[in-house]
């Protein structure tokens, strides 16, 4: 590590990275557009101006993304000349930029807005007409491009070249006539398109899915982990007015996903919003499933366990380690449903295994079963538990409906299953409504946190299982 003086403090800087990385690491404010820590630096936007003094040379203002760190370098990110250079840059950038903020999805998380407030001047001096380009150019199913908003910093171009390693976008033309485009208006392809909407510093590349859906300042955000494959990319879950999950975005994690996530994971949140949640508990009465107080349902389940012994457990691979541990202690036989491999497997992030916690559950002793195997096993059982979000969907409602009436089936899922065999159903929280841990394919822990409250009457599954365990102890049983 190299020692530099950054804004009066001596700090350590990684000599393999440009000066701007050290500035950000030590919370020095340096704006950036073309620089992104996950992509190669180009030094073209010229906004990351800082004042640098090295040895006997006079202090100079330079771009931090193309300045190598040097021992003893004195860096001033708040120098008046640096601020002046940034202000000048911003005036140039805003000259052609359309004043779309009122209708632009990026408002509130836009680097051009943010840096203009921080470093820019109140009023631009241009009276020239702005350039006219395409404003709603569809780039396929995922991305829509507004060429007028684009400030041409090529993060999107570099992303496709360097990450999925197949160029799909280019800067075309030159100078003030430059614009971003695909070849011959072809749509973008592949499972990583959404990332360019994240890295676009302005609202030029935006997600069709998110278009006009929410103002970002109305979104509450919680860190979490993607559950769509065993990579377990770190994500941020964004919820609108405490109700709908509106967006999932990648969260930087150098060990797992760096700065990226795949589109499959990114757009998988519809299931988190499906209405008709199992709130509380249901019991099968004479006229079908009827509501039941959860604690009464737990008493009934504990009773079933006393009568029939420890059940066969068929768990969802979305179970957390915390839930898995408690469940394994209650299970007669612990299994989880192993869905078939996904064709989305690639060299980048998607592992092809649609289970977020296969590794963790395996380590806890849960045996993997294909859905068909699980159903065969269930058909031969007297008493079984289906536990965890999506367990009903993984096994298939139609198939579960054929289970014999002799089976005493208890279901713990997010939505009611209501097949003839199920006599007791309890609601569980889904992945954005509970804390917990998954182990990804490499054994790295991915944490879940609560982005939204579970529906009323739905307790964390860990609490439900603890309560169940308590009822099943001899002291309790005796009561």
């Amino acid at each position: 590590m190299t020692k530099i003086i950054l804004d009066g403090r001596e700090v350590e800087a990684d000599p393999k990275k440009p000066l701007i990385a050290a500035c950000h690491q030590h919370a020095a404010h340096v704006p950036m557009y073309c620089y992104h820590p996950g992509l190669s630096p180009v030094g073209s936007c010229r906004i990351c101006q800082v004042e640098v003094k090295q040895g006997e040379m006079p202090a100079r203002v330079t771009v931090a993304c193309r300045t190598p760190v040097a021992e003893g370098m004195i860096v001033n990110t708040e120098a008046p000349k640096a601020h002046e250079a940034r202000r000048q840059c911003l005036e140039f950038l805003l000259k052609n930029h359309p004043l779309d903020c009122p209708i632009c999805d990026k408002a509130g998380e836009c680097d051009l807005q943010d840096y203009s407030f921080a470093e820019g001047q109140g009023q631009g001096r241009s009276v020239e007409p702005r350039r006219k380009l395409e404003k709603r150019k569809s780039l396929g199913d995922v991305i829509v491009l507004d060429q007028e908003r684009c400030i041409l910093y090529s993060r999107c171009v570099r992303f496709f070249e360097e990450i999925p390693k197949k160029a799909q976008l280019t800067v075309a033309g030159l100078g003030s006539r430059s614009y971003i485009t695909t070849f011959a208006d072809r749509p973008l392809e592949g499972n990583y398109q959404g990332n360019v909407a994240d890295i676009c510093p302005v609202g030029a590349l935006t997600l069709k899915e998110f278009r006009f859906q929410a103002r970002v300042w109305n979104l509450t955000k919680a860190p979490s982990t993607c559950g769509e494959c065993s990579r377990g990319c770190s994500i941020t879950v964004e919820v609108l007015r405490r109700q709908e999950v509106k967006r999932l975005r990648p969260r930087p994690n150098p060990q797992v996903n760096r700065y990226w996530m795949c589109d499959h994971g990114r757009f998988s949140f519809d299931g988190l919003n499906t209405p008709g949640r199992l709130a509380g508990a249901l019991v099968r009465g004479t006229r079908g499933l009827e509501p039941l107080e959860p604690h009464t349902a737990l008493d009934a389940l504990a009773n079933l366990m006393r009568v029939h012994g420890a059940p066969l457990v068929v768990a969802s691979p979305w179970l957390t380690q915390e839930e898995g541990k408690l469940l394994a202690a209650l299970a007669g036989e612990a299994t989880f449903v192993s869905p078939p491999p996904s064709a989305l497997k690639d060299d980048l992030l998607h592992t092809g295994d649609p289970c977020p916690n296969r590794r963790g559950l395996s380590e806890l002793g849960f045996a993997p079963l294909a859905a068909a195997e699980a159903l065969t096993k269930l058909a031969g059982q007297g008493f079984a538990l289906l536990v965890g979000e999506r367990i009903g969907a993984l096994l298939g409602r139609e198939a579960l409906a054929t289970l014999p009436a002799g089976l005493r089936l208890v279901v713990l899922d997010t939505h009611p299953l209501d097949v003839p065999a199920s006599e007791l159903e309890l609601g569980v929280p889904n992945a954005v409504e509970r804390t917990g841990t998954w182990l990804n394919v490499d054994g790295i822990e991915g944490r879940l946190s609560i982005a939204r409250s579970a529906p009323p009457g739905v307790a964390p599954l860990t609490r439900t299982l603890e309560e169940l365990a308590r009822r099943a102890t001899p002291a309790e049983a005796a009561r």
Partner: protein
Amino acid sequence: MSKLEVLPQKLRDEFTELATHYPLKSSALIPALHRCQEELGGWLTPDILEACAEFFGLEPVEVFGVASFYPMFKLRPVGKHLVSVCHNIACNLRGAEEILAAACQAAGAKPGHVSPDGRFTVERVECQGACTAAPMLVLDGVFHENLTPDQVGTLLGSVK
């Protein structure tokens, strides 16, 4: 689907030889695009760009990005004859605008457009390096210097 057939074998052989001049095959792209434009109708169609991408191991979008950077590469149809009139300072001082007006009149085309009969495209260009012999125009790649406006009509009339 391969687009290589868009490039005649003779051109592909030329490109193979050209590529040996460089440590990286794709560095021959710009000379190759010139040859395509010269041999295949005066402008670079999307098919030609795709064929070159395939030949040089690039993505079509990369080739398009390169071609669109350079004013000499035409990405839209052009007339049979390209008439380029320099409008930069030395020529401007010695009557470039009159030369341009004469060229547009003789060609029957507005600057930047193809003439209705398809014979000419007239365009404004930047300094061509004929400053001491200004004003000038370039007709099908050949410089015509020390021009007067009345010579322009004859010049354009001399080509079919």
